[in-house]
């Protein structure tokens, strides 16, 4: 897809994807990183994102969906502006990961896979995020918070709320 055609993506992302498809011997090898970058920018894999990625690689939308649905980190519905990912794998679980998850549920008023009404937070339970040494740990978008205790949760939530207010606006970009 040339730069001139209408793209959903920012010029920077479009350029990055253009480079990516040329990088591999087969264009479709770029599919997973493309989906990940597109999701980071758009927030989720909308029908339009799927269609554009398919067109950029030259495969069918069905093929894009076949791959994308395999990965739990790729999503088809919008997440909150801050996606709270609570690890409940073995180290985190032993050190109280489920209490953390429960506290987030109370604090945000949503269950796993839920999004708050203001679109600010979403919550999900994830597999190991590689922070076992500092368990229990969570990841909010790409930020880590570790060695947590349930009583630290409100502070984390508040800090992101403050951050959102500072940026002016509560809904998703």
């Amino acid at each position, binding site marked *: 897809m040339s730069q001139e055609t209408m793209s959903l993506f920012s010029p920077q992302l479009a350029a990055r994807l253009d480079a990516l498809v040329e990088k591999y011997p087969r264009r479709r090898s770029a599919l997973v990183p493309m989906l990940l970058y597109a999701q980071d920018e758009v927030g989720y894999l909308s029908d339009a994102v799927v269609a554009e990625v398919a067109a950029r690689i030259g495969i*069918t939308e*069905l*093929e894009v*969906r*076949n791959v994308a*649905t*395999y990965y739990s980190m790729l999503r088809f519905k919008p997440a909150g502006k801050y996606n709270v990912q609570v690890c409940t794998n073995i180290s985190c679980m032993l050190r109280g990961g489920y209490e953390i998850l429960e506290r987030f549920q109370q604090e945000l008023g949503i269950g796993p896979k839920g999004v708050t009404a203001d679109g600010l937070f979403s919550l999900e339970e994830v597999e190991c995020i590689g922070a076992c040494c500092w368990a229990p740990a969570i990841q909010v978008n790409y930020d880590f918070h570790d060695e947590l205790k349930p009583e630290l949760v409100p502070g984390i939530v508040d800090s992101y709320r403050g951050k959102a207010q500072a940026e002016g606006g509560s809904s998703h970009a």
Partner: protein
Amino acid sequence: MADVTFTVNGKKLTAPAGTLLIEACRKAGIEIPAFCYYPGLSLQAACRMCLVRQEKVPKLQTACTTPVAEGQVFITDSEEIAQARKATIQLLLGNHPLDCPVCDAGGECELQDMTFKYGAGESLYADAKNHREEQQWSPAVYYDRPRCILCYRCTRMCGEGMDVWALGIQNRGVRAAITPNGRGAGGEQAWLDCEQCGMCIDVCPVGALTSGSYRYKTRPWEMNHVSTVCTHCADGCKVTLGVRQSNDGSEIIRADNRDKSGINGDFLCAKGRFGFDFVESPERLAKPLLRNAEGKLEPATWEQALRRAASKLKEVRDTRGGGAIGVIGSNHTTNEENYLLQKLARTVLGTNNIDHQRTTDYAAFAAALAGHTGKAASLREAATAPAILLVGGNPTEEHPLLAWQLRTNVRLNRARLYIANAKTIKLERQARAVQTLPEGGYAKLAAYLEEGASDFSKAVAGEESLLVIFGQEFRGADVKALVNWGLKRGNVRFAFLGDYANSRGAADMGLLPDRLPGYVPVSEPGAFAEEYPGLPGTAGRTLPEMIEAAAAGELGALLVVGANPAANRGLDRAALKNTFVIVVDILLTETAALADVVLPAASLYEKTGTLTNTFGDVQMVSKAADRAGVKPDFEILVRLAGAMGADARQLVPFGAGGMTADLGQSRGASAGEADRHAVWLAANNLEPKLSPFDPLAMLDEIERLVPGYRMDRMNLLGGNDVPTEPGLSPASSLVGAAPIVPAHNGLFTSGTLGKHCTALKNLAEHQAREMAEAVAK
């Protein structure tokens, strides 16, 4: 590759190096079970059923991905392997519902067979099975998700085999499911947007994909299976019809070709697989009809109808001569019927006014090949030829089997496909080189290839051997020019594409006003005329000329057999004011509605005989279904001639060796053995033809009198396709332009038959909706 020797279960086997173990074992009669492995498709190794023990390898290996090499030692059958397979089945049955008593596949399910064999009858899982509602993806395809064992056969068949890529697998693990490409009108419902060939249903080893026309209709073991030939396009796929007793005969319930016999193997398109319901169309004729004093068609007995038709034909012949009678034959009737029809016209009615709705200029093809034997290609060659030049035509739409053969050949044998076409066709995706022709460029194609100036023509010229397949765009002199180019070039074989199941047979059998059977000109007659002296010596009227003659009041009677010129050749009531019309057909067509006498015929699925596909391959048609009230065209024609006072023995050479035959008393032929019995009779020089209504009685005469039709009879009766030789037709010149009107039937249309197939109409509507959705997006 060189042969290697390896050991399986203590037995030495030999196979070419690189052969997959599962194939090598199957050839040697050692069965290795597999769900995901399917010959011809890419390897998946998903099901783990084909596990075998290989010496010196720590873990069990999948036989479907193990190429054999010198000195390997395998065990394919042991306690350990049985246990491994049993464990696999237990996992597969974890969510698989045990609804076998109502499942379509029950009784012919590979999972059921394996469970029976390896005995995983007891479930070790305490959890409830995951249930999902079944989905309808199209009028033809239903998906029952919990039954699916994720073997990927359907996705590979659809993608690699059909080049449609409409099926995928989404999600993972226990949530993984087959997903179609479309999302329907509401946006969320799963819909299939594809060619609706039903191959996915066919290859499904379990009952996950089921067919709209077959599901919940019967149990597999309640059907009888009859192997015959599809009645739609001119490729001549072999089709196995599942039939069952019904109130008025026996009905067709299913069409497939799971035994992989014939030219097509297991391939069938939507028409072959679902397009058989015209036999029970409400417009299907079940009684002869006569036009009464008020001008309305009303039911009559066969005697009344035949007497009226015969007396009128006789009267016109005796008072106005044979020239006042016209005969229009069919593209769907058998060779025997076509031969009989032209014989009836020429020897009994005394006229050369005989034609059919020509869709391809086969006469020009025969004239171009005259004297050059061994130049006509069988359809089988499309799957094996190293290089193919496809000129014109659109096989994907109009010749699905040919398209399948070409795709398979390119995929498995790396055949080189060259395409020259005025339009863009889908097969270009498989082509090595494509040449787009200007409108009318076909006439100049031979000169263009000869010139060899472009890369395309150089590439074609560089091929050592070439299979040239050309479409209906070619007529008369253009056919000659292309064939001459090929003959000059050398090492070329040809095929010419036509439209209907027996279009080629109709032309070969002489349903032409200027040609006797085998394209022998009426002016220079050969064997046929010698055997039947006194034939009319001048060319008769073509179909359009007959219609003109009728309008001018010059045609006293018109006999139309299995054709519908009122729908597509402009025949109308006004033109027929002074013509007595007799129509023999299976349906109350537009033409039948104009007739004075209508005789109800058996469809191709309800009779015996032979057909010739557009490649000249002859195949046996066997009677599968049955319908009360109808008669095969063959019998109708013999009865009609008989009612005119003609000698049936002159018309049909039956009972030549006396009136005795072994009808099975010596070996107790029972139901289902008839075909083999025929082979046995022939081998023992016995005479099975005791009746003038036996179409096979005509086969001897066809072989004797039609140039090019000397066939390998044992192979033919054994259910195989046998080639004919158009090169044996006499050299002759073509007179005038032949009235050729290609039908250009697509995936869901089939002339008049297609209009009466509810299944095909539903598929066409579904695909039209999908198309509209896609455009709206």
